[in-house]
């Protein structure tokens, strides 16, 4: 039997979708013919079904036909024809239309779009729902909020909106993604899962400086989350390492606790103009001192925690700051470690390469947000990319991409 199975159906037909998913899950190839786009095929279906265009109508290689079969009937037919083994264990694997890896602004926005289209969507989040946006104190440049919005509040709203339309967020981790043609197999903390399409939106994490003492004093004087750990530094002296938007924004946040902050900038301040002018007020008030051209060399402490940071200044002279804690915001590292053996192409810094449809080199696997090569690392862009990815995923699932 060399002839293919042919499934006649339509994109709006849930039973067609179910039968196709069953075939996909069992890695059984077939030809898909949409009768809305092929009048001759529509006539053929009507002929088979005594004038009714009943779908799905499935024609098998031995010319036998099943109309609107249950999964059980379809399975029995495939076993009879020796196309499928009777005890195929793969049927136990959970299948979704789309699995999104990550639940930050990109994935949550994508989920709002896919679930509104009734595309069955599952998100996996191993860290914080809302991603880095959720741990940012104030987001001043996300459109629609006159006075800015707290990261946690934005994350909660996005989550609530996605869940309202039926998105399901699983608190767990995806360890690997394997391309199995029409289906993608994801190894997760909830077992293996299959998805017809995958969106990778795992974002990035704050980079570490790598200086001695950083790992040793982690959470005992060295921190990466001001909104989590700032409260422990009431009336204490802090150093913040970094000179970008996050470093300045979080330094300003930390002034509500700390008595003084040394902002240690390795080169020059790169924060936006608005943040820099806001920073000036805190500098004038003596709450923050900015030091440019400063390179951290070692974080020093004792059993009670951190007590100083040793640096070199622009003239290579050693300068020591007496402080009680250090917060590090020196840039971002993409969360793509789990893709090592996936065959998904990454760029030189580990970001995922995509085409203009936000699709990776593997068909049906898309990427959006901070984890994508070429992303602008903005929450508004991540949300926009999430929306684009969702629309492209819909096209892909409909066989139009």
């Amino acid at each position, binding site marked *: 039997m060399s002839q293919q199975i042919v499934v006649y159906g339509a994109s709006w037909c849930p039973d067609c979708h179910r039968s196709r998913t069953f075939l996909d899950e069992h890695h059984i190839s077939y030809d898909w013919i949409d009768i809305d786009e092929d009048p001759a095929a529509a006539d053929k279906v009507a002929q088979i079904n005594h004038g009714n265009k009943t779908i799905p109508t499935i024609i098998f290689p031995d010319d036998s036909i099943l109309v609107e079969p249950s999964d059980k009937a379809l399975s029995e037919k495939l076993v009879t024809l020796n196309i499928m083994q009777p005890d195929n264990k793969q049927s136990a694997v959970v299948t979704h239309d789309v699995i999104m890896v990550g639940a930050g602004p990109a994935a949550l926005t994508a989920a709002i779009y896919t679930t509104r289209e009734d595309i069955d969507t599952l998100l996996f989040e191993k860290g914080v729902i809302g991603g880095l946006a*959720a741990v940012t104190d104030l987001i001043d440049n996300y459109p629609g909020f006159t006075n800015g919005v707290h990261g946690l509040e934005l994350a909660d709203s996005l989550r609530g909106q996605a869940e309202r339309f039926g998105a399901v967020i699983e608190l767990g981790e995806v360890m690997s993604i394997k391309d199995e043609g029409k289906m993608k197999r994801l190894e997760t903390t909830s077992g293996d899962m299959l998805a017809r399409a995958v969106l990778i939106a795992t974002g990035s994490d704050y980079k570490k400086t790598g200086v001695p003492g950083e790992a040793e004093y982690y959470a005992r004087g060295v921190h990466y989350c001001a909104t989590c750990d700032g409260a422990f530094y009431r009336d204490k002296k802090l150093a913040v390492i970094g000179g970008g938007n996050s470093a300045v924004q979080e330094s300003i946040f930390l002034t509500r606790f700390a008595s003084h902050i040394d902002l240690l900038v390795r080169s020059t301040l790169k924060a936006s103009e608005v943040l820099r002018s806001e920073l000036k007020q805190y500098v004038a008030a003596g709450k923050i001192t900015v030091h440019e051209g400063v390179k951290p060399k070692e974080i020093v402490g004792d059993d009670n925690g951190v007590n100083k940071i040793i640096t070199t200044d622009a003239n290579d002279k050693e300068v020591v700051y007496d402080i009680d804690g250090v917060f590090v915001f020196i840039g971002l590292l993409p969360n793509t470690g789990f893709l090592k053996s996936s065959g998904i192409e990454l760029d030189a810094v580990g970001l995922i390469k995509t085409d203009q449809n936000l699709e990776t080199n593997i068909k049906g696997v898309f990427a959006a947000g901070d984890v994508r090569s070429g992303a602008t690392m903005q929450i508004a862009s991540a949300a926009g990319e999430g929306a684009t990815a969702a629309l492209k995923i819909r096209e892909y699932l409909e066989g139009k991409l």
Partner: protein
Amino acid sequence: MVKNITIFTTNTCAYCQMVKTYLRAKGVGYDEVNLDENPHRRIEAHSLSGALTVPVTVVTKTDDSQEIIVGYNLSKLVPAIS
């Protein structure tokens, strides 16, 4: 068996929200000590965890032994409450 759970949190801490979200999803009750509202209890959180961070989740078992989980760490939280 778990007797009770106490989580030290702050208002702005997203990881604290995640611990609470996880426990709620599993139908597990907990007490919360908000350090913004009870700043004097920071010392308690610090001495229990040895860390200057939240969330600190204290799982007390029926035999009164305690398990302390620092941060939002499912690989430690899941076995501790099961």
